[in-house]
């Protein structure tokens, strides 16, 4: 659990965010992350992130499922308990295709989702530091990691000049921990909403 110092800049438009990301990177700052309310296409490339290999993992899980199905069924029906079904062949491959297919899909889907949750550290009761509550609403929140040499004032001014609506410096936990969200400060005041 190491706390780090970050400079946060909030943008409200992708069209402003993209050039800002480019400029921040060219200026040599290390972008910790950009938090967005939806998947902004091309942002991963702009930030220089590599492609995900999640689909490769999915393929491996899938063929594991196929192999499990065919090896289990063929062992059961030819070795463990060769049942005579109307004198038909014990090794009845065409009749096993449906189950082989279903297990392929099942293993691939379950495996991929678990891998996704593992890689992104997503699970019930997991808590992380959120730099801005509106990052899941309407703001694109760029977070830059500071080094010893970083001049935060300069960086904040730099972000503002590139279109950031709001900038701040935060010292925050970078990983995840088990925790509750209702211990946080409420970002919104108690308010009455009229029934629709």
């Amino acid at each position, binding site marked *: 659990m190491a706390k780090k110092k970050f400079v946060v800049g909030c943008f409200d438009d992708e069209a402003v965010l993209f050039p800002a990301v480019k400029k921040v990177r060219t200026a040599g700052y290390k972008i910790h992350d950009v938090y967005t*309310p939806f*998947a902004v296409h091309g942002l991963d490339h702009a930030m220089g992130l590599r492609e995900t290999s999640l*689909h490769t993992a999915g393929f491996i899980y899938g063929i594991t499922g196929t192999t499990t199905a065919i090896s289990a069924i063929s062992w059961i029906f030819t070795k463990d308990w060769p049942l005579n079904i109307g004198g038909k062949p014990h090794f009845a491959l065409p009749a096993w295709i449906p189950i082989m297919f279903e297990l392929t*899909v099942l293993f691939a889907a379950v495996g*991929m989702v678990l891998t996704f949750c593992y890689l992104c550290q997503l699970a*019930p009761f*997991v808590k992380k530091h959120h730099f801005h509550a509106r990052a899941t609403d309407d703001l694109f929140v760029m977070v830059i990691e500071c080094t010893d040499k970083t001049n935060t004032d300069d960086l904040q001014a730099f972000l503002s000049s590139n279109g950031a609506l709001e900038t701040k410096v935060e010292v925050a936990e970078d990983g995840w921990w088990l925790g509750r969200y209702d211990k946080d400060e409420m970002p919104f005041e108690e308010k009455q909403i009229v029934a629709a």
Partner: protein
Amino acid sequence: MHLKYESQLREPLVYGDKTYKQVTEDIVRPIEAKPTKLWYVGFYIAVALLMFGVYSVYREVTYGIGQWNLNKTVGWGWDITNFVWWVGIGHAGTLISAILLLFRQGWRTGVNRAAEAMTIFAVMCAGQFPIFHMGRVWMAFFVLPYPNSRGPLWVNFNSPLLWDVFAISTYFTVSLLFWYSGLIPDFATVRDRAFTKLRKRLYGIASFGWTGSTKHWQRHESLSLVLAGLSTPLVLSVHTIVSFDFATSVIPGWHTTIFPPYFVAGAIFSGFAMVQTLMIIVRKVFAMEDYVTIGHIEAMNKVIVLTGSIVGIAYLTELFMGWYSQNKYEGYTFWYSRAYLFSPYGWSYWGMMACNVLSPQIFWFRKMRRNIFVTFFMSIIVNIGMWFERFVIIVTSLYRDYLPSSWSVYYSPTIWEIGFYAGTFGLFFTCFFLFAKYFPVIAIAEIKYVLKTTGEGYKNQMTKIEDQKLEDFVHEHAHH
């Protein structure tokens, strides 16, 4: 950056001049507001139906299958009819969320969340029927292949009924994962604007600590795409396998090679009808006409008229083959037990024809496709018709066997058979009411993603792009 331009000829998918914030507000509003009286009325009716279903099932479990009017030849009556009907309904959700995603159909974003929820609840309802049809339901776990102390006595992997076990359980699991992985970012949206402690805590748990990190979004996109790619053949396989329950038998009227495509088309047909029924209510009750637009409804009606006509062709093909095969039993089943109006069950065949084939043809007219009342009415008619289709297939093939001596008396359900069916409606709508109150019924993040290309307010600003010279357009918008 991708192209941020869409032709003005296309209808907007989001009406009004919305900002990202407005989208969040509109969709989260029902979650943050107190439920209306209408919601309570609907919810309690659903719970009452569910309770009646529980009691019907209780009687069936306690006294046995004799509580139903199944007889010596009609061994599958309402029960399996309802099973196939509910599974079929589920298919539209996967079609919208997976197949239309792969086909890049932008309009799916408005309806996919609710349609996927419908899939999950429908499959939950469907699963009840074969399980309780087993009679000794406490032995239901015998269908699972695991090394056991009974031999080991394995299940029959060559049987379509076992394929069904694998197909339905896989379908349920994958649909649930797909749905929930899409919900995580939207739960985070609800969490981050929650103003009560309880909501903050519960949505905090449900959102798995989602932050909206770009890397996470990149993986999320990859996950959605692969799950869509997996769900597409999966959904086709599920109803194919359900049709194998019939097609691999030697019963006249069931032993047909066209069953898989015909069942899949029928499933999509009935599923879209159910999506229409639900979405027309949801958009009205939650004032979401801007997101589930008349254009969405028209698009779904086009699918209904297409799949309805495919089903119609299948019916006619079956009749033709009943004659062309010159098989006495096939001929008798198709031309007497089904198509002859004055045979004992002829009414059900013609009811099916009227609801599934004839009436959806009004959707060839644009005015009808865009009429809410017609659509709502038709969505009910189609679901009645599709229920009759399964009833016709099961009962008219079974009630008269090969030998006249084993012809059964007229089959009609008992109150407990009907109660079981009503109970699944209760289960379905109880789940759906809870979903509508506590879950974002429209995929917030996905709407935001398409907002600036398809939102009405943004499209109107694109006139200047349309007037641009081609070279300038390419210069500004093409990839560099």
